[in-house]
């Protein structure tokens, strides 16, 4: 039970990698990369969790009244989610350019084109 969150993170990462390697469509591959990213969020938050804790946001509770979870990993994750979305956008832009240049988004066909 105590390692289940870590194992879930490993599972998500490996599935994402499998999808990335066997994908026949670059847009699908970008989606798989987003799944891989999600595994890092799960791992980071699992490391920062504390039993019975609550969020260290003191707008509605008094400081010190309840145990709190780790804010540092949350800060890392939260910036990465938004930045990750813009990186996904950059990759999708690359896919559009590939489609314009080569007329296909299948990685196998692209390899044949290069010869």
């Amino acid at each position, binding site marked *: 039970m105590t390692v289940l969150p870590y194992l879930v993170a490993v599972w998500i990462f490996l599935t994402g990698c499998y999808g990335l390697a066997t994908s026949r469509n670059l847009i699908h591959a970008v989606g798989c990369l987003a799944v891989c990213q999600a595994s890092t969020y799960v791992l980071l938050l699992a490391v920062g969790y504390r039993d019975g804790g*609550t969020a260290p946001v003191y707008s*509605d*509770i008094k400081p010190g009244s309840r145990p709190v979870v780790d804010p540092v990993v949350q800060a890392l994750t939260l910036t990465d989610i938004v930045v990750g979305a813009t990186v996904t956008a950059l990759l999708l832009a690359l896919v559009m350019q590939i489609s314009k240049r080569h007329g296909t988004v299948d990685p196998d066909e692209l390899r044949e084109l290069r010869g």
Partner: protein
Amino acid sequence: MNGWTLTATVALGAGVGATVWGVATGPLRRRVVAQNLSSALACPGLLLLAQGYGRPAYIDLALVLALLGPVGTLVFARLLADDLAEDPPHAWGVTFAVAGYGAVVVLVLCAVTGPGRAMVKLLVIGALLIGGNLVASRALSGGFARSRRG
């Protein structure tokens, strides 16, 4: 673990679990409906969790989901209009059931909260959630019916 989180566990496990199954299998018309219902089911779950943890601050999440969940469905309704026009989804029974579930959760929480700013916020979230859910369903079943490219 209290009654609120227990209810949330059951509702999220069964409801969102079913939408995951619905979105991963079957024809396109079932998948878009499942996507719409996933946000409509998760939003009351977030409200229940906020109550269960005793943290009114968590309600902001439900507010954002009630606003942006239907927007996500509108994205699909708009960009898949041609595909959906051939085979439009008809799932009004499930949609109204889920909307009723959202209404019940919001009303129960309102009764517990008592009058005040928090209750107004809850009612706004409820209105946005149910209105958004119904409009998004409407959009899926022919909101962009005579769509051309654009």
